C-alpha cells in the first residue's frame, strides 16, 4: 500500500511540478474545438446539432494524446524496470499511475467542457450531463488507454500506434457518452446512458489493471 501511495505522490509531484503541462490537454481540447467551426462553418444552428459529438470526440482525443507519456518516461530512464522488480503487485502500482492520469486530465476536461459547449452553441440544459458523462467516460478511457500505452511503451514511434490500438476500444464509451448528451438535449431520459457508462467503468476497473501489468511485462521483455 505504501508503494502505491508513493507512486501516486511521485506521479502527482512530477506532473504538478510542471504546472503548464497539466494544462496542455485542456488547451488541446479547446484548440481542437476551435478548429471545427473554422473548418466547418460558424453557423450556430449547424454547430448546435453537431456539438455533443464534436465535444466528445475532442475530449477523447485530448485524453488519448496525453496517454502516450503515461509510462514512456519511466521506460526511458529505467524506472519501469525497477517498478517491475518491486515486490508489490504491479497491477496496483499501475492503477495508481492511471488514477493520477485521470485526476489531471479527465476530470479537468469534464469541468471545462461546458465552457466550450457555450462556444459551440450547445443547447441549454445539457451542460451538467455533458460534464458528468465526460467525468465517468474519461475514467474508462484512461484505464483502457493505459493498456495500449503499456503495450506501446517500448516502441519508438508509439504515439500513433497507440491511437490505432486504443481508438477501437473507445467506441462504446463514445457512443454512450455522446448519446447521453444528445438525450439530454432532446429531453429523453439520460439515466440509461449514464448507467451503461458506469458499468463500463466498473468493468474496466476490474480488468484493466491486470491487462496493464501484463502489457508492461511484455514491453520490458522485448
Amino acid at each position, binding site marked *: 500500500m505504501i508503494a502505491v501511495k508513493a507512486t501516486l505522490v511521485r506521479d502527482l509531484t512530477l506532473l504538478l511540478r*510542471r*504546472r*503548464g*503541462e497539466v*494544462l*496542455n490537454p485542456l*488547451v488541446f481540447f*479547446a*484548440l481542437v474545438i*476551435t478548429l471545427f*467551426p*473554422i473548418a466547418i*462553418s*460558424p*453557423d*450556430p444552428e449547424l454547430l448546435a446539432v453537431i456539438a455533443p459529438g464534436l465535444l466528445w470526440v475532442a475530449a477523447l482525443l485530448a485524453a488519448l494524446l496525453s496517454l502516450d507519456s503515461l509510462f514512456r518516461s519511466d521506460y526511458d530512464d529505467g524506472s519501469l524496470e525497477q517498478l517491475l522488480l518491486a515486490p508489490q503487485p504491479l497491477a496496483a502500482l499501475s492503477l495508481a499511475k492511471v488514477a493520477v492520469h485521470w485526476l489531471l486530465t479527465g476530470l479537468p476536461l469534464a469541468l471545462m467542457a461546458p465552457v466550450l459547449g*457555450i*462556444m459551440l*452553441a450547445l443547447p441549454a440544459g445539457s451542460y451538467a450531463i455533458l460534464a458528468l458523462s465526460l467525468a465517468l467516460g474519461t475514467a474508462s478511457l484512461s484505464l483502457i488507454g493505459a493498456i495500449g500505452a503499456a503495450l506501446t511503451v517500448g516502441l519508438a514511434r508509439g504515439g500513433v500506434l497507440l491511437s490505432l490500438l486504443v481508438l477501437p476500444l473507445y467506441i462504446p464509451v463514445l457512443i454512450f457518452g455522446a448519446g447521453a448528451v444528445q438525450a439530454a438535449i432532446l429531453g429523453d431520459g439520460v439515466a440509461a446512458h449514464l448507467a451503461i457508462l458506469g458499468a463500463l467503468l466498473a468493468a474496466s476497473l476490474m480488468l484493466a489493471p491486470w491487462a496493464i501489468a501484463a502489457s508492461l511485462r511484455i514491453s520490458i521483455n522485448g
Partner: protein
Amino acid sequence: MWAFIHKLGSPKWFYTISAKLQPWFWAAAVLLLVVGSLWGLAFAPADYQQGNSFRIIYVHVPAAFLAQSIFISMAVSGLVFMVWKIKVADMAAAVMAPLGAAMTFVALFSGAVWGVPTWGTWWMWDARLTSMLILLFLYLGVIALRGAFTSRDSASRAASVLAMVGVINIPIIKYSVDWWYTLHQPASFTLTSRPAMPTEMWLPLVIMVLGFYSFFIALTLMRTRSEILRREANKRWVQDLVKGQVEETR
C-alpha cells in the same frame, strides 16, 4: 553606437533609469484610468441603440488594443534579445507575456458579456472574436514553452523564436479569418459598421486607451526590475545595492 546600445541593455543601467521613470507612468496610469472610468461610466451619454451596455466599450477596446500591442512588443523584445544578446529585452518579454494573456482574456470576457445584451449570445464565430481567441492560444503557447525548459537561457531563446514566428503569423491569421468570415456569414452584426461616435463618447475612450498603455508600461518596468534582481542576484552591483539598503534600515 554599440557601446550605447549595450549600455542601454545593461541591467544595472536599466535598473537605475527605470526607477526614475516608473513613478511617472504609474501616476499617468492612475490619473487616466480614474478620469476615464468616471467619465465613461457616469458622464458619457448612453448609446441610442445599446443603452448603457455600451459602456463596456471603455474596457473592451483598450484591452483589445493592448492585447495585440503586447504581443508585438514581446516579439520585438525577442528579436532584440536574439540579435544583440541584450538580456533586459528578454526579461521584459518574459514579464509581458502574462499581462498580454490577461488583457486578451479581458477583451474576450468583456466582449462575450457585451454580446448577451447586443447579440443575444455569449459567443459567435465572428472574425475578430476568432482571431482574438487564437491570440490567446499564442500567448499560452509562449508562456508554456518558456516554463517547459529547465535552462533559463534556452527558455528565453525558445520563447523569442516562438514570439517572432507568432508575430509573423498574426497578420496572416487575421487576414485569413476575415476572409473566411466574409465567405461564410451574412454580416448580420459587425463591430465596425456602427455610426461614428460623438465626441463625448469617444474622448473617454481615448483616455482609457492611453491609461491602459501607461499601466502596461509602468507594470512592465516594475516587473522587469524584479526580474533583474532575480536573475542578477549574484552580481556584484545587486549585492552592493542590497547591502546599502540593509545598512540604511539599521
